[in-house]
């Protein structure tokens, strides 16, 4: 029966693999809701007109860019994809996108949208829609929307009541995309004449001080997420919010609202200027159906398709003609956003732009959470920026390395061959080699292909620098940079040593808690006569059964400052709610609490098994000898637990050391990357800081070395155990 099941499952897996039809045009996007429906409708129109089928794939936004850069060079990507223009330079340098051609005409679109898609005078991509920010106003609460910041400041106190959870304004204040309007409104600049990012400007300080004041006077909430903005606005607890066109679909039907341009800063006379993003349909460089792909991309950006995207998808079209349509003229949301976009600053499509997000986010949060003063923030961002975006190290000559590898290979072989000749023949020493080989081979092949090869590639990668698809051999430069802590002092969160100390602390605290709680519970549970023993045991292993990324998200929600259960408990006990992720100690504690909840059941089960294997006669004998409870625990329980617990502790410590999900999802490294551990830091270098795979691989190798040292140490522990 079991074998039959296995066969059926395997067959099913193969069928799922084999069921691939002929290839229509593949279109990737990250739309949801109305935008997605509109895109489907638009592609249906295209299919009706041309007979060419289009396969749509909706991807989660977080995974989208990485997936494109992985898939397209391997020929596994789409023919056309929809993306914001600000990553264009990156896509272009990796040779992922093709320039527009054929029927493309500049005058069909607003000129700034076409300019946004230019690289070296060539246009890549067909502009589809504009994305920028505007002010959504609850008309019941605010009949006359403010046009200047002075009016806004006068209005906010009357609309806010923090005790009731009401706020005059709400937006995702910790996100630089939402802060940018303030930066530009206070005449701040992000790039100097040479196109290099520079943060230390008076505009930056003034904009941060303004926002910080709004938050400190409780005119807007702290630690705002998109979900919170939505909840507050729909409950009528936020009178005004700042968001983009996509938010229109999230508003409850009961809320009456208007969309207006962001107010003008009274001190400077400059309007709050959001970024202008252009969403475009890009044709991939590797497509095999180039002419139809271009046709589809152009079709989606113009005419009937832009009408559908406007009316059904609520997008702001880049197509000039669309605004002549009656349906679009009548649509106040679309026209308001079009007007609001007049003030918007087109986001540069340079590589430099992609580099400002993380330093700005860290700085913004540091200011809002009180970790830095607005006037010092610019310098802080500058330093972070320089640390995160390393210049490419000088190229190294790979020949000595190849030579070294060669010498090591020869030396290794020689060493193996010259080992003292055994007294027995090979066959005598290993009588069952043939059988062993048949048993081990399947696992060995699998491990070789999918574990050891990727592992060796990872090791090798650490000697390279990766930038925009290009690998350069740099020898040990990555390691030197990491170990010399180049760019920051060793007491800063971005330094390897700081992260290493945090990681060791993290692993030690967790393992101690896991083992002591697990052992304590096992001692309570061990008595076979205990009533409800089975029930307790079942309830206590639940945390182990919950997938750990769910655990992480769940606890992240529970630690939310304004709406989390933990602060709910504190308030119920008459205590002040805590802002968990603004200080290292509390953020670290939140991570530890989550991981402890997750990890103690494993230790409990192991300890329980070990306790049950101790023969009760030992205790009876001790009892007869008059040994106290404590003496019994010290001299019988602990020594006999050790052999079972030691491997579990070692395994547990390795797991905790590399516990990525909890850190990444619960604290996310806040505040300022201080609670990041080595693994999450390596992940950020690989996937969030311009894909510096080589640098990330060097981090991984160092993690590996640390754990290897740990395993040598524990092996010695185990050996003394055996000797004892």
């Amino acid at each position, binding site marked *: 029966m079991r074998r039959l099941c296995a066969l059926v499952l395997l067959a099913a897996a193969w069928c*799922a*693999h084999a069921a691939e039809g002929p290839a229509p045009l593949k279109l990737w996007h990250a739309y*949801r809701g109305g935008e997605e429906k509109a895109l489907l409708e638009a592609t249906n129109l295209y299919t009706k007109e041309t007979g060419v089928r289009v396969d749509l*794939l909706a991807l989660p936004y977080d*995974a989208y860019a990485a997936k494109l850069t*992985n898939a397209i060079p*391997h020929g*596994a990507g789409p023919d056309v994809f929809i993306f914001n223009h600000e990553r264009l330079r990156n896509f272009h340098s990796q040779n992922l996108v093709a320039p527009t051609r054929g029927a493309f005409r500049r005058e069909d679109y607003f000129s700034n949208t076409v300019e946004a898609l230019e690289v070296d005078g060539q246009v890549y991509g067909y502009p589809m829609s504009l994305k920028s920010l505007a002010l959504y106003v609850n008309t019941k609460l605010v009949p006359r929307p403010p046009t200047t910041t002075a009016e806004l400041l006068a209005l906010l106190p009357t609309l806010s009541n923090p005790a009731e959870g009401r706020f005059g304004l709400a937006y995702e204040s910790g996100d630089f995309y939402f802060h940018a309007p303030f930066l530009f409104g206070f005449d701040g600049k992000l790039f100097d004449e040479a196109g290099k990012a520079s943060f230390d400007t008076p505009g930056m300080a003034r904009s941060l001080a303004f926002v910080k004041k709004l938050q400190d006077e409780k005119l807007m909430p702290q630690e705002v*997420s*998109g*979900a919170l903005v939505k*909840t507050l606005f729909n409950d009528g607890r936020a009178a005004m919010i700042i968001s983009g066109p*996509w938010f229109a679909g999230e508003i409850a039907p009961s809320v009456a609202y208007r969309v207006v341009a962001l107010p003008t800063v009274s001190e400077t006379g400059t309007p709050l200027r959001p970024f202008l993003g252009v969403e475009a349909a890009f044709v991939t460089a590797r497509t095999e159906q180039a002419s139809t792909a271009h046709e589809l991309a152009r079709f989606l950006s113009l005419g009937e398709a832009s009408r559908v995207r406007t009316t059904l998808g609520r997008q702001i079209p880049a197509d000039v003609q669309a605004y002549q349509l009656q349906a679009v003229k009548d649509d106040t949301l679309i026209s308001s956003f079009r007007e609001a976009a007049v003030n918007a600053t087109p986001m540069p499509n340079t590589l430099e732009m992609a580099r400002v997000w993380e330093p700005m986010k860290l700085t913004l949060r540091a200011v809002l959470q009180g970790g830095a003063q607005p006037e010092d923030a610019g310098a802080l961002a500058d330093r972070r920026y320089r640390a995160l975006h390393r210049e490419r190290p000088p190229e190294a000559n790979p020949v000595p390395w190849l030579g070294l590898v060669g010498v090591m290979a020869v030396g290794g072989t020689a060493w193996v061959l010259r080992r003292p000749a055994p007294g027995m023949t090979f066959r005598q*020493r290993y009588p*069952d080699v043939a*059988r*062993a080989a048949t*048993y081990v081979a*399947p*696992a*060995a092949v*699998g*491990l070789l292909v*999918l*574990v050891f*090869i990727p592992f060796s*590639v*990872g090791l090798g990668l650490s000697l390279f620098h990766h930038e925009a698809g290009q690998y350069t051999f740099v020898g040990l430069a990555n390691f030197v940079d990491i170990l010399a802590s180049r760019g920051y002092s060793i007491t800063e969160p971005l330094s390897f040593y700081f992260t290493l100390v945090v990681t060791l602390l993290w692993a030690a605290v967790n393992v101690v808690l896991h083992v002591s709680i697990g052992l304590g519970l096992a001692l*309570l*549970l061990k008595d076979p*006569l205990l009533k409800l023993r089975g029930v*307790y045991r*079942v309830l206590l*292993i*639940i945390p*182990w*059964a*919950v*997938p750990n*990324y*769910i655990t992480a998200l*769940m*606890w992240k*929600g529970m630690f939310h400052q304004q*709406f*989390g259960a933990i602060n*709910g408990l504190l308030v119920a006990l008459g205590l002040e709610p805590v802002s968990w992720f603004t200080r290292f100690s509390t953020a670290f504690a939140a991570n530890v609490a989550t991981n402890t*909840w997750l990890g103690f059941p494993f230790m409990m*089960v*192991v300890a329980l*098994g070990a306790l*049950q*294997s101790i023969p009760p006669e030992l*205790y009876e004998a001790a009892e007869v000898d008059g040994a106290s409870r404590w003496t019994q625990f010290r001299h019988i329980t602990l020594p006999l637990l050790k*052999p079972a617990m030691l*491997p579990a502790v070692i395994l547990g410590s390795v797991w905790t050391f590399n516990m*990525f999900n909890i850190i990444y999802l619960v604290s996310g490294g806040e505040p300022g990357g201080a609670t990041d551990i080595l693994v999450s830091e*390596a992940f950020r270098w690989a996937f969030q800081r311009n894909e510096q795979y080589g640098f990330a691989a060097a981090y991984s190798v160092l993690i590996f070395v640390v754990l*290897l040292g740990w*395993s040598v140490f524990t092996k010695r522990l185990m050996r003394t155990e055996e000797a004892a």
Partner: protein
Amino acid sequence: MKKPSGLKMAFIHAGLSLMCMVTLYPVLWVVKMALSPSDGLSLTANPFPDAVTFDHFREVLLSTDVHGRWVFGRQVLSSIIVSGATTVVGLTLAVTAAYALSRFRFPGKEGGMQALLITQMFPATLMLVPIYSILQKLRLLDSLTGLVLVYATTALPFCIWMLKGYFDTLPRELEEAAVMDGATPLQVFLRVVLPLARPALAVTALFSFMTAWNEFVLAATLINDPTRFTLPVALQRYVGEYKVEWGKFAACALVVSAPVMALFFALQKHLVGGLTAGGVKG
């Protein structure tokens, strides 16, 4: 052993109940979010819902893609296929390899065991880039088969170590006796060794199943077709960057966790023996 006094029993029960409450609180909180009509969070300590609705479950379970196809059913099916096949493939590979490592002498055995442990120390996320290229060379991208192979092999080191430890504790005399009775080596393995190792097999199977059922980074990267997504990837769509749909997230999280919990409950008796028997003798 002496029968403990009533007072001590009361103390034990109090301690365990308290711990159970701590353990259950977050779970109840998720249940509350899943059942509450509003889609947001609210600052209360009370883990019980004020009002109950099954809308979130209905929306999650009946979710369709833009073509109106019922995707949730397909995603459940692909989760079951992937996890089932991973368990079968992983267990087969692990059992044979562990048996060989426990019983036979062959060159490279010690080194092999060490190498297995060492692979556990390299961060998995960094292997993503090479694994992607390898699967693409094998033409296994965007296929459940590829995913199964990756899951089965990445779980292998732990499974082999566990099973090897357990096999080491099984007395060889039983196998020798079976050989005396005329059993072939294969019969010995299938009829004598495997039945004896049932608790460890159960735990290893559970572990392989969980690896596949819960994993989402690889699944999200390697699979393109939404109808082939596994459930954790499906769950991801409720936790967008700008919009977290807490109600649906909670409902989906419960649906995803339920099968693993059920398996845990079914196998929990084996859990205690299976995990430690190997460890006790090192």
